[in-house]
Each structure stands twice: as C-alpha cells, then as structure tokens.
C-alpha cells in the first residue's frame, strides 16, 4: 500500500463518518430525502461560488454552496406551509429546478469553468491525493483530507455538545419544545451541518455517494438496534467498513471508487435486510408465520370449546369445517397436543383442563380486548417457547 492509497482510504473513511452522523438523525427524523435534495441543489451554489472564488476548495465556496442547501430546505418548507402540495412533492419540485439551473450555468460558461456535472455527481476520489495543501511551501497532506477533517471535527463537537437536545427533539419534538429547546434552531442546525458536510464531501466523493453514506449506514444500523448511541456507533463502523472495502473492490475492478463504496453499502444492506436478528425480512416472515399459527390454534380451541358433540370434534370434520389445508391442520393439532391442550381419542379431539383454561382466558381477552391480558396469557401458556 503506497501513501496515496492510504490517503484515499483515510479520506473515504472520514467522509463516511462525517456523513453518517447527520445522516443518522435525518433517518430518525424521517427526512432522509432532504439529503438527496440538498446534494442536488448545492450545484448552483457551487457554480456561482466558483465564479466568485475560482477555487473549488475555497472555504468561501463551501459556505456559499452550503447556504444554497439551507435555501433549499427553507424553500421546501415554505412550499409545504402553503399547503398547495404535499411535503414530498415540495422536495421533488425544488431540487430538480435548482439542479437544472446549475447544469445550465455550467453549460453556458463551459469555457471558464473547469467543472463537470459528472464530477459533481460522482466525484473522483482517486485524484484527491494529488491536490495537496501547501502551507508556506510545506506539503501537509491532501486538501480534501483537511476539508473533511475540519468538517468532521465541527460535527463531532456539535454532536457531543448538543447530543441530549438532538436526542430529545428527534424522538419527542413536543417534549423538546416544552423543555425550552427551540425546534427551529435544532432543525436548522442539523440542516446546516448536513449541507456543509454534503458540500465538503461532494468534491471528493460526489453527490450520490454523500446521499448513500448519509442514509444507508444509518438505515442498516437502525435494523440492528434501537439504541441511539449504539446506532451511531454501528452506522459509523458500517460506513468505514464499506469505505475501505469499497476502495479495494474498485481497485480490483478498476472502476469508480464512489460507485464501488455505494455497492458495498448496498451489499451490507442486503445482508442485514435479509438476516437481521429481529427486524430482518426472514425474522419478520418467520414471526408472521408463527402468529398465523397461533391465531389458527386459538380458533381451533374455541371451536372445540363451543362443541360437545362428537361429530363436530372428529378430526376429519375439523378439516372441512374450519376449512384448513391439510398441512396447517396438522401443524395446529401437533402444536396443541405438544402443549397438552388437547387429547385425541379415537379421532375425537377434546380439550384438556389446561386447554379449557387457556381458551376461557382467550375468550376473556377477545371480549375485553386489553393488551395486558394477552401478554400474561402468553407468559402463562405459550407455546413456541416450550
């Protein structure tokens, strides 16, 4: 590994961390698409800033472009407030318009601007180490590293300083407001951090990767935990993991680093989406299947309790009466037998004492429909736990 490779991985990792922190809060606040809007609509800000400063890495340009990001948020909120269209439509109207202005500005001034729309969307991480920051002639490292480092430092400081406020306002905006934290300040603070991060990172990794790094690690972590601190930590680790593995994947494939990092994030997301312990798709489907069986069992027991006649309780009759398929009927019968709720004698099914008690309780529950009761019931009897 040569020094350029180390620097690229370092930049990618720092970008990942810097994006993940505001991204986590955006995802929790259901504003993930705002990051997409910001990442597109900073384009005119960057172009105009570039006309003024003639330097893509100038802090002034970053501030200017970040300001465009804030304007986007304000515009979206203004349109929402008029009530003419729904929230998501407002987002969808604002950013393409701003982005178009940016594209046209670039196209009209193609000769003066060394700016390429592709580069804005995708960035080119591979070139980042070549743009060095020189302080009085001494090479202190790539500019991108410094920019994103400073942004990350600010983000972390703000995160630590306002963690409590952010947490409260994210999960209970009403409580936060009544405690005296201004929701507007926290909201716009978060938006400003998101904008600055987007602008600072776009040059190195492109607008799309910024969006991916803001949303994906947070979403992956959200599938694995419900604790905010753990979620942040997990999200950051996934971000860094995908940044580094993505770099090597791109190295091997000789393709875009940004695209490759995103692909890694996609793979991680796919894995977690499928296999996450309690919220993954497989776990959810398994749970749903169990619940279906539980409901079937309950129906079955209720049927038994309602009928004393032998013909109603004959095994074959049950099948046609409740209209279950063979397999499901068998599962339910087995489950009930295993839990000592029924006994089968000469193909006649009858409730045991335990089954009778359980069914009575279940009827009580269905009549009163109070959550507390079914929870107790589950503890008393249940079922899949042994």
């Amino acid at each position: 590994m040569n020094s350029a490779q180390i620097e690229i991985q370092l930049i990618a990792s720092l970008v990942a961390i810097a994006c993940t922190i505001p991204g986590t809060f955006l995802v929790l606040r259901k504003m993930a698409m705002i990051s997409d809007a910001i990442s597109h609509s900073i384009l005119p800000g960057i172009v105009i800033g570039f006309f003024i400063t003639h330097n893509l890495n100038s802090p002034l340009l970053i501030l200017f472009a970040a300001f465009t990001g804030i304007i986007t948020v304000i515009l979206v909120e203004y349109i929402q407030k008029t009530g003419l269209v729904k929230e998501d439509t407002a987002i969808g109207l604002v950013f393409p318009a701003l982005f178009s202005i940016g594209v046209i500005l670039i196209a009209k001034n193609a000769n003066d601007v060394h700016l390429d729309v592709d580069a804005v969307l995708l960035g080119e991480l591979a070139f980042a180490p070549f743009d060095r920051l020189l302080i009085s002639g001494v090479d202190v490292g790539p500019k991108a590293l410094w920019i994103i480092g400073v942004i990350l430092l600010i983000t972390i400081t703000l995160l630590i300083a306002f963690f409590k406020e952010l947490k409260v306002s994210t999960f209970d905006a009403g409580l936060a407001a009544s405690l005296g934290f201004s929701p507007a300040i926290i909201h716009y603070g978060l938006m400003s951090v998101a904008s600055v991060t987007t602008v600072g990172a776009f040059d190195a990794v492109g607008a799309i990767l910024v969006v991916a790094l803001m949303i994906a690690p947070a979403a992956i972590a959200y599938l694995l935990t419900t604790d905010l601190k753990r979620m942040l930590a997990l999200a950051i680790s996934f971000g860094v993991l995908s940044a580094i593995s993505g770099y090597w994947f791109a190295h091997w494939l000789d393709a875009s680093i940004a695209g490759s990092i995103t692909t890694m994030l996609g793979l991680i997301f796919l894995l977690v989406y499928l296999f996450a312990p309690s919220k993954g798709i497989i776990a959810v489907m398994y749970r749903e299947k169990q619940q279906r069986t539980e409901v079937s069992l309950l129906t079955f027991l209720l049927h038994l309790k309602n009928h004393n006649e032998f013909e109603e309780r004959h095994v074959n009759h049950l099948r046609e009466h409740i209209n279950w398929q063979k397999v499901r009927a068998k599962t339910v019968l087995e489950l009930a037998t295993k839990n000592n709720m029924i006994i089968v004698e000469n193909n006649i099914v009858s409730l045991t004492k335990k089954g009778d008690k359980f069914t009575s309780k279940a009827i009580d529950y269905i009549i009163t429909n109070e959550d507390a009761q079914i929870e107790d019931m589950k503890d008393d009897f249940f079922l899949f736990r042994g």
Partner: protein
Amino acid sequence: MDIQDYFSLVFSDYTLRTITLGTAILGAVTGMLGSFAVLRKQSLLGDAISHAALPGIAIAFLITGAKDSNTLLLGALVSGLIGTFWIRGIVKKTHLKSDTALGLILSLFFGFGMLLLTFIQKQPNANQAGLDKYLFGQAATLVESDVWLMAIVTGLCLFVLLLFWKEFKILLFDADYTKTLGFNTKIIDILITSFIVLAIVLGLQTVGVVLMSAMLLAPAAAARQWTNSLSTMVFLAAVFGAFSGVFGTAISASQTNLSTGPVIVLVASVFVFFSFVFSPSRGLLFKHIRVIKNRRDLELHKTLSFMYHIAETHDNISHPHAIKLLNNFQGYTKSTLQKLVEKDYVKLEGKMWRLTETGFNTAANLYTKQSTDDE
C-alpha cells in the same frame, strides 16, 4: 437560431420535428401518470425509480454489448421495477420509513449503476461511448423509432387508464373501501406503478436520470392547483407536460450550449410557480387578496358595530357624533368610513357622522348574526 426560426423550422426539419414531438409526448404521458403519483403521495418514487434504472441500462449493455436503445430501456424497466418493489418490501416488512427506503434504493442503485458504467468505460469496446447520455439525457439523440415507441406506450397507457379509470380513481382516494368492494387492489396498484415506471424509463433518454422525477411531478403539481376533479387534473397535467416539452425544446434549440432536459424542467417549474401564485381558488395571490378583503370586511364591521353601540345609547339613532370618537382600535380609517358612507350606512356632516336607518339595522343584524355564528 432564434425562437421564430425554430417555429418555422419545426414542421420541416426532421430532427427538430422528432425532438419536439418526442418531448411533447413524453411530457404528456409523464404528466398524466404523474397526477397519480402526486395524489398517492408517491412524488419521490419517480426520483428513486429513475435513479434505480441506471444499473439496468449498464447490465443490459454488458449482456448484449449493443447500444440498441430498446434493449437498454428494457434493462432500465426491469431494474426500475425491482427498485420499486424493493422499496415496498422495505416499507412493508421493516420499520424503516418510506423516505429512508426511497433514499436507500435511489443512492445504492445509482451508485451500483455508476460502478458498472465506469467499469464499462474501461472495457475495450468502442461501442460504449454515449451511455452516459442517460445521466442527463440528450433529446438530440431521439430518432423517429423512439418517438413511435413513446407514442405507442402513451396510447397503451391512455387505453388502460380509460379502461380502469373507475378502479384507479377509487383506489386513489379510498384504498380500504376499494378492498371491501372486492377489487383486487394489489393488481390495480401494481398496474399503475408499472406504468409510472414505464413512463420514467421512456424519459431517461431525453431528460436523464437526475431530472426525470421533475417531469413526473411538476406538471401534476401545477395541474392540481387549477382543479379538484381528477379527470381535469390528468388532462391539464398532460397539457402542461406537453407544453413544457415543446417550449423547453424550443428554448434549448434557439440557444447554443443548452441541453434540453434542464430547460424542460425549468419550463415545467415556471408552470408550477405560475400555478402556485395565480390559480384562482388555491393560488397564493388570490388567497392573499381574500385574506386582505376579509380583514377589511372585519374592520368595517368593527367600526359599524362600534357606531351602533354609541347610537344605541341615544333616543335618536341618527344623532350626530364627532369623528374624533372613532379611533384605529375600532378599525377606523378614512377609507373604511368612506366605504360606510358609500353603502349608505353612515352620513357625514362636516366633522360629525350619524348612523342612518339602514346602517343601524344592518349593525343590529350583524351583531345577532355574529353571535349566532359563534354558537
């Protein structure tokens, strides 16, 4: 070439005619289907789908190695559909919210698509140049067969829309009711979503991945401001979309260095802005005028009822009083007083005013009417 040249050339010049027709048809079909997306609160779905279509284009190229636009669009269609249904899966089966799901699929698919595109660019295949036109779109690459394809899809779409109009409409406004009526909501839902995906994919070549969502949203959002009826909205959205396409093409053709996609989007945005401001029933301008008018009415009433209270204490209701008695607090201004005079509620005599009979009665009724309203 300026705009006038454009309009004189549009009927004779092959390229211009093709592009104009193409963008007009595209605008019409996206506007039509966009109405449904907007009303179903799926506005950003278009954005996600158009980004999600990119890997499909790249994969289709990798498999066939040819740049035939129909095959590429087929790939885009498949990958757009996968993205759409994955978004649904995420929203339905996990606790991630729809905005997160949209953002995830959008960025992950697009990133993957970019990876493939850059990978393709490194391949020793001379054919690969020009794939990136799908990023921002190039209306200039439209040929007659593309326009035919668009026209056929639009016709098909129109046919299905008319055939299932009732079902689409009821699903849009009351999904639960539709289900209880016995309609298969899943199939209707899939049908309309697939058509939205199809329309987006068609537009990729012209407007590009990034701006396609605006084509879907803007005409529909503009049309929504002018009407409360679905059929009118769909029709208006189609008209707005078509005009955005034509004007956008005209403007970009009359200037150098202007790509068509962004101009079309900007024209559509102008339509939206105009509708937001000037729509008679919902527009901001008329809403504001109504607010001002109401405020004035209220102040007029306030002055009148204040006068009424003074006049009440006198035997002769038309007893003159000094204007000085009135002040701003009662909503008095010179113009309100003038208005009262015009309505013949009040008579002015020098620096004195007195209530007329009609004025007194109106004020009395005003009072009772207000109090009953309040109850």
